[in-house]
């Protein structure tokens, strides 16, 4: 009977991961591992994808020693039916692929493969990474989600990193002997490093057959490299090629042990190694159940000593455990390296995200490349989408050189980096056709390089590049954390750039807002005040000298406090100056400004404005208002204040709106006040509207110089205002 529940496939979204959070978690995980809290570490490891990547469930599968089935070591949130089935799931296109290729894989939408077994459990996307277990079939760390998802490169790498950490945990846990009478070789102690482990293993082997010396060689590709030795002459080469014809090479190639007593001529191998001190020797292959991982050599220098089948048998029996030991050491070293890289990344992450200063951020990034990736030459470049060019943001070379070398070195990799979205590695630049003509490579002696793209929301924003004089110069683990750095860097730089742009606009805006020189109008005392509330102001005022000796006076309030508003102000100011020269009638000017604002800004952007033209000789004022607070005119003779407005509509609402203008005659001692609503809002009290207060203050202060009155009014407004301040702009003109 099929007891499975068929869960509905849900539409919805996965919350994408935050790289900073993830790095923080990994950092904590590595602390748990380092302090031997292995159970907690394992628990944390399967929890991290759920917490940081919006994954619904995680499962850790390891191969079973005795059977073909996998073991479910631990899981988080796995639906019960999947939990039962997962150990026998075959042809799932994911775990199978990962185990076979020993590489991580992500499937953004499982429905693209209609036969995927995961669909039965209501799952829509998955990421899987291999967990190494010492050369045998790897285990698998599976993360599944109910939502179809595009996994970012750094997210897949994160799961792969977790899988590696998990393998370290599992190995450590399993090497604690429960029922084993003999201690396993290679069980690490707290202060061990990989070298210690392998040396201990070698010592045990040498002791077991009373050898005078020997070595353990690890197989790396076509090479055998000595990773531990005792009693070898200094001139013994540290590594040998499998085709060298040495004894170890023969053993590694043929997978069979060799025992030699006395000096023999044997045409299975050349006695190119003249080692007269060696009297007898045994070499045995070291393998895990599938692969040959190295060779164990022991020798005796005692005269007339012979090894027998007995010693051969002993070594044969412990060879398996020796192999495990060196595999363990390798994994241990790998995960320690990873932890080291993760810790550096964490420190950089915190530093980068705690500043908005572009200079600091770019410096930190190149510093990371120098220190943690040992780059001889490194650079951070920004991609300008508008012009489709790549520009240098910061470069560093311990070998000197001109600034244009960084671009030269990075350019060949740019298209590959953009395409692949993963770091592009060059193990030997001299062998890479893309770098054939690059002069800087030869001049600086660079051999290896890695270039990664920075992207924000799917768009490329820049590149990081690192180069070394050593071929194969970059540690695999360092390259693996590079996507994490790239992700962080991209976000931090984007934020810094946005902040910078805002600040630049504000700066530019403010500069362009201030009248270029304080205007003087003959026969008038002028006082002005402009106090923007935030970095980016929303009001502006201007006094323009017109060709016929008259003056145009404008004050305006732009809706909005963001950079869009600032841009509108700039537009407004420049249009005003251009138009004022030609159009003398305030109504016509306002009408023109209205059309401009309608055309050049968003439908719901608007500006309020008063524009007046003053003839200083006749003291006649013509004015037109558009949605703006009324102008106030203090009449000296009557000691009263008139309100003057034409009651026009805000600019930017109706493009074909018509406006009227009015005139006023100014007498000696009269004061014209133009202002924005920030001032009257601030002056308002519960009892009295702001305008009334402003009128009474004008009457009170009328005898003072205009600039002094402007300052006093501003002080009054700032002192009184109990809500967050608005911009205050004010122009006062007194006829003398």
């Amino acid at each position: 009977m099929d007891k499975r529940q068929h869960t509905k496939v849900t539409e919805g979204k996965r919350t994408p991961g935050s790289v900073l959070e993830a790095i923080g978690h990994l950092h904590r995980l590595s602390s748990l591992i380092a302090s031997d809290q292995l159970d907690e570490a394992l628990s944390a490891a399967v929890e991290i994808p759920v917490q940081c990547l919006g994954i619904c469930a995680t499962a850790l599968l390891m191969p079973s020693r005795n059977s073909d089935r996998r073991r479910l070591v631990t899981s988080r949130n796995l639906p019960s039916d999947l939990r039962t089935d997962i150990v026998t799931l075959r042809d799932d296109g994911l775990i199978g692929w990962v185990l076979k290729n020993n590489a991580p894989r992500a499937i953004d939408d499982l429905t693209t493969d209609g036969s995927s077994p995961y669909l039965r459990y209501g799952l829509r996307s998955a990421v899987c990474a291999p967990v190494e277990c010492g050369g045998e079939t790897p285990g698998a760390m599976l993360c599944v989600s109910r939502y179809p998802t595009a996994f970012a490169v750094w997210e897949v790498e994160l799961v792969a990193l977790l899988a590696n950490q998990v393998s370290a945990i599992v190995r450590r846990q399993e090497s604690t002997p429960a029922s084993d009478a003999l201690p396993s070789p290679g069980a690490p102690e707290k202060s061990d490093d990989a070298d210690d482990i392998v040396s201990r293993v070698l010592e045990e082997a040498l002791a077991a057959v009373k050898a005078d010396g020997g070595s353990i060689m690890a197989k790396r590709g076509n090479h055998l490299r000595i990773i531990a030795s005792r009693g070898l002459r200094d001139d013994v080469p540290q590594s040998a090629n499998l085709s060298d014809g040495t004894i170890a090479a023969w053993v590694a190639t043929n997978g069979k042990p060799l025992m030699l007593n006395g000096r023999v001529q044997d045409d299975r191998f050349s006695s190119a190694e003249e080692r007269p001190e060696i009297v007898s020797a045994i070499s045995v292959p070291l393998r895990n159940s599938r692969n040959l991982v190295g060779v164990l050599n022991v020798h005796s220098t005692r005269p007339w000593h012979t090894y027998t089948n007995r010693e051969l048998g002993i070594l044969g029996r412990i060879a398996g455990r020796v192999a495990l030991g060196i595999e363990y050491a390798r994994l241990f070293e790998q995960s320690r390296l990873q932890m080291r890289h993760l810790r550096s990344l964490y420190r950089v992450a915190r530093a980068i995200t705690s500043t908005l200063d572009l200079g600091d951020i770019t410096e930190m990034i190149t510093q990371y490349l120098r220190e943690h990736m040992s780059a001889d030459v490194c650079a951070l470049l920004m991609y300008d989408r508008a012009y489709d060019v790549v520009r240098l943001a910061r470069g560093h070379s311990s070998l000197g050189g001109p600034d244009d070398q960084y671009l030269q070195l990075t350019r060949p990799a740019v298209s590959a980096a953009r395409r692949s979205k993963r770091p592009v590695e060059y193990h030997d630049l001299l062998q890479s056709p893309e770098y054939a003509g690059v002069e800087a490579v030869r001049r600086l002696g660079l051999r290896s390089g890695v270039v990664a793209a920075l992207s924000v929301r799917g768009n490329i924003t820049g590149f990081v590049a690192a180069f070394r004089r050593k071929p194969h110069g970059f540690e695999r683990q360092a390259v693996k954390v590079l996507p994490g750095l790239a992700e962080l860097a991209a976000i931090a730089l984007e934020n810094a750039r946005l902040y910078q742009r805002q600040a630049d606009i504000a700066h530019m805006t403010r500069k362009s807002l201030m009248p270029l020189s304080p205007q003087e109008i003959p026969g008038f005392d002028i006082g002005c005040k402009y106090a923007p509330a935030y970095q980016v102001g929303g009001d502006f005022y201007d006094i323009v000298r017109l060709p016929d000796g008259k003056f145009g006076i404008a004050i305006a309030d732009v809706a909005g406090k963001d950079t869009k508003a600032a841009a509108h102000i700039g537009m407004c100011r420049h249009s005003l100056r251009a138009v004022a020269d030609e159009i003398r009638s305030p109504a016509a000017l306002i009408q023109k400004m209205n059309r401009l604002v309608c055309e050049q800004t968003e439908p719901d952007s608007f500006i309020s404005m008063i524009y007046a033209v003053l003839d200083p000789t006749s003291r006649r004022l013509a004015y037109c208002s558009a949605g703006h607070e009324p102008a106030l005119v203090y009449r000296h003779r009557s000691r009263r204040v008139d309100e003057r407005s034409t009651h026009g509509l805000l600019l930017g609402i109706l493009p074909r709106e018509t406006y009227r203008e009015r005139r006023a005659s100014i007498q000696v001692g009269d004061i014209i006040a133009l202002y924005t609503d920030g001032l009257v809002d601030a002056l308002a009290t519960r009892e009295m509207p702001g305008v009334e207060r402003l009128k009474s203050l004008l009457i009170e202060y009328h005898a003072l110089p205009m600039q002094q009155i402007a300052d006093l009014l501003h002080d009054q407004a700032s002192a009184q205002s109990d809500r967050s301040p608005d911009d205050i702009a004010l122009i006062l003109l007194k006829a003398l």
Partner: protein
Amino acid sequence: MEVVVTLNTRLVDGTPVIDVDGELDHAGLPEFRSEVSNLIEQGHRNLVVDMSDTHFMDSGGLSGIVYVMKRLAVLKGGVTLAGCSERIFRKLEVSGLTQVSDTLRFAPSVEQALRELRKAS
């Protein structure tokens, strides 16, 4: 910026009444616009905004009013501001929006506003 406005919408006889409690300014603008947008998407063409608890409005708030006016004008609908304070009404007068069209209406209370709407339909 701290948001110091609370928006609550209730339906009275099928007409949405948005209660603006606090200040109608730049900080609250995105929420106001999004609320209006949602209501329009749900098919409403006439809205009432209860301003009786709105004690402050600046150009940000005006922006919100302009937004709702423009959206409803296209649909031949309208928005009634109910219970505006003197100060806020004055601001709207200064802006000239009160003269624009029938899209923007005023009423002393929500009940009155709804009554006018019922009469019109």
